[in-house]
């Protein structure tokens, strides 16, 4: 059940997000090594695809998306490789990196982005080790509850979402109304 390819999405608060504004910002992140412990490689612009991945900062260990799936823009952190640790450590690390990217984007004043912390979507992009079924949910639920409580400070409610053909996914209602920085500061 131990998978590497974890994703965490936090939604943007404002509905006025213009993903193409991210393109120069992500190029700058590569140039300035904004996330120092990751190798950032390139920027993929998919703003022409409705409800698509938006703008993607392609990295070696992880990708960062300003994702517009379901017409709900948000920051999607997607870990691909290079993590060694148990399930809980993996979940915690994915939450932390997603929140950190949200904070970095919030700090880009030219964007005017702000992210909500009341709802998080967690996915595992690994149908072999983590099919979207009850057994996977049972395996990940305790870790997700612990991580959500630790970062967001309230009792979360979890809901498995999607079909068997989709990746394993859980929508977490955190009960939080705090900021991204609050969440990072709490853990």
């Amino acid at each position, binding site marked *: 059940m131990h998978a590497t390819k974890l994703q965490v999405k936090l939604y943007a608060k404002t509905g006025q997000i213009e993903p193409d504004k991210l393109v120069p910002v992500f190029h700058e992140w590569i*140039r300035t090594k904004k996330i120092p412990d990751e*190798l950032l490689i390139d920027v*993929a612009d*998919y703003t022409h695809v409705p409800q698509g*991945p938006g703008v993607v900062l*392609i990295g070696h260990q992880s990708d960062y998306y300003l994702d517009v799936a379901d017409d709900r823009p948000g920051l999607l952190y997607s870990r691909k490789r290079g993590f060694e640790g148990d399930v809980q450590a993996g979940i915690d690390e994915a939450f932390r990196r997603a929140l950190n990217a949200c904070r970095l984007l919030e700090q880009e004043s030219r964007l005017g982005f702000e992210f909500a912390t009341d709802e998080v979507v967690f996915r595992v992009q690994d149908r072999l080790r983590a099919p979207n079924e009850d057994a996977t949910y049972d395996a990940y639920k305790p870790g997700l509850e612990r991580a959500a409580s630790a970062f967001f400070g309230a009792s979360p409610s979890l809901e498995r979402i999607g079909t068997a053909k989709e990746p394993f996914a859980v929508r977490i209602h955190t009960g939080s109304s705090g900021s991204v920085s609050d969440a990072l500061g709490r853990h």
Partner: protein
Amino acid sequence: MTSWKEQLGDRIPEQLGGEVDLFEGQIELKKQGKLEDKIFAETRLRRGVYGQRYDNGLRDDGTGQKPLAFPCGDLTKGPDTVWDAPGMMRIKIPFGKLTAEQLEVLSALAEETSDSILHVTTRQDIQLHFVHIEDTPDMMRRLAAVGITTREACGNSVRNVTACEYAGVCRTQAFDVTPYANAITRFLLGHPDVQDFGRKFKIAFSGCEDNPCGLVTFHDLGAVAQVRDGKRGFRVVVGGGLGAVPVQAKVLSEFCPEEELLPLAQAVSRVFARLGEKQSRARARIKFLVQKLGIDEFKRLVAQERESLRPDARWTAFLDDLHATDEKPIRPAGAIPGDASADFQAWAKHNLRPQAQEGYYVAIVKLPLGDFTSTQGRALADLARELTGDSIRCTVEQNLAFRWLSGADAVTFYQRLSALNMAAAGAGTITDMTSCPGTDTCKLGISSSRGLTAELRKRLSVLESELHPAVEALRMKASGCFNSCGQHHAADIGFTGVSRQVGGRKVPHFNIVLGGQWTENAKSYGLVVGAVPSKNIPKAVELITQHYLAHREGEESFQAFIARVGKKEFRKVLEPIQKPPAYEQDPSYYSDWGDPREYTIGDIGVGECAGEIVPFVEFGLQEAEQQLHEAQDALEAGHAATAAAGGFNAMVTAAKALVRHLEVQVNDDAEDVVANFKTHLDDTEIFHDPFAKGKFATYLLTMHQEESYKHADAETAHRTLDEAQLFIEAAHACYQRLTQAAAAAAAE
């Protein structure tokens, strides 16, 4: 389960499974340093595992080229190709046919190993980008389990066999070419006679002569369905190709009976493998062999080879069941409701086409830049299961075709597409541009063809309802470089990426190619009118289409108009926008569409030495371009020999400018220029392109040696001008490299 191999078990066909196991073993050997770079590179290419931009571990971040510190260290997956660098996976989809299950697996792979985007190529493949090589064996296993192989998707092999997406349901076809495309795919896959090619080999099928869906004339081998006296067969053409120098295929057989198609393809393959160029990659496609031998000699050799072939039961076995590939509708036929909404009507105008079978339609899902998401992929698979069955086809215009849609279900289909944000109207119109990956991901990209296409698409979509029908009907295609993967030669308005040096900085440009013909299987190719800065291309499209509408006679088509007024007139139209403003006035011209980095590679300054030399060499290159334009005018006027001689002279002028730039004394005599060019720019490899190597130098040297420009016919003249255009582009690129080197030396 701990692995996909265990999980999928018997669902993976034994042979495909064995091949993937072997490839996985080769990956391990490479990691252990037991396999040579070149051998491993060709091995992975033949499995569809392709390189991608920046995979040499270097990337210009807008301020200079910087190393990408991949954790793999010195481990490589080919010459100058870093192991950990993301790559592209090309997945062959023979004649573009996909089942719902296959689409679901592809979507899952896009999510798990790529960036959730599936890209349809101009040759009906699906490509996934940013893939790590170590993910590829399991990708291949999961694909194999649903009947897809990536074998020979890249490399010097028979690439994906393409066919028109309407095959079997088309009203103008002679017959359904699907079973023949399927048979040749299976017959040649892994066949020993196709393993020793010097370059790739592309095959296409068309069901009829007049419609463009198969595009056979720019393929290495093309087959057009024919029925003679009730017997099925094909008009077979050979030696076509786009690439740097587009060539129309020649007729190999006016009528090849169906039972002779596979042995003929085998014989052609054997001749190509035996006599095709192996050393010089630039001249290794079969089109060069056909040109070198002449079509009559080529025919003779193929006929001789055919006689010597040992009979093979597979040549005709498939003919026993030509209906094996037939599709069956899953819904009853019906009429489109008469009271459908205006939005539906607008979509149906270009996106629905009635089938030969009454009451059924082919629905085209117009994809932006050939892209769709994994979520959309799954939803489309559901839609197919519900309404059309396993009848999806990737199209050469980078869309998806759903066949066997009952007219009665058309509105429901449209509504479901709308919910997926996939109901864009205007399939096959000017808003439906195709594009190669260009600088987004391709190692060879010069300009951002996808960035340009996205921009044009955005602007034109706003105007869609106001477009004049004559403009709406035009086709535009963009390629990021001279290799023509965007098929721009066959567009009404085509674009090919080039760069220009302005005030010591590089500016992305596109050469505009007008007058290509998409219809009649891409019957003729366009010629370059001139280079325009990338940021002025939208204006160029506006000027070209306005000029056409203002000056056409009656219902005159765009091609007829171009033929009548000539490209010279369009050069005048474009002249005001061909020069970019100075960097200080508008720096936006110095970066490409969708990419804020300054287009310049490295920190190029304007050194004093370079400053003195620049005007002279640029003058020479401009003179060469002028000569080329005059030669193009001569060709249009029907003076082939004059045109060819002019093309050769333009190359000599460009070569002379570069030779003098190196401070070598040279006179105006072509003999002297070519000799010095060879010594100082070709032998030294200074002129050589980093990827195409000595290809463009060969154009001048060969032309000079063979004197092919003398007494040229129209076709030779056309080719000469194409080669001259590329040679001049290469001269610009060479000059830019020399400038960079001078600036770097000055900085030190």
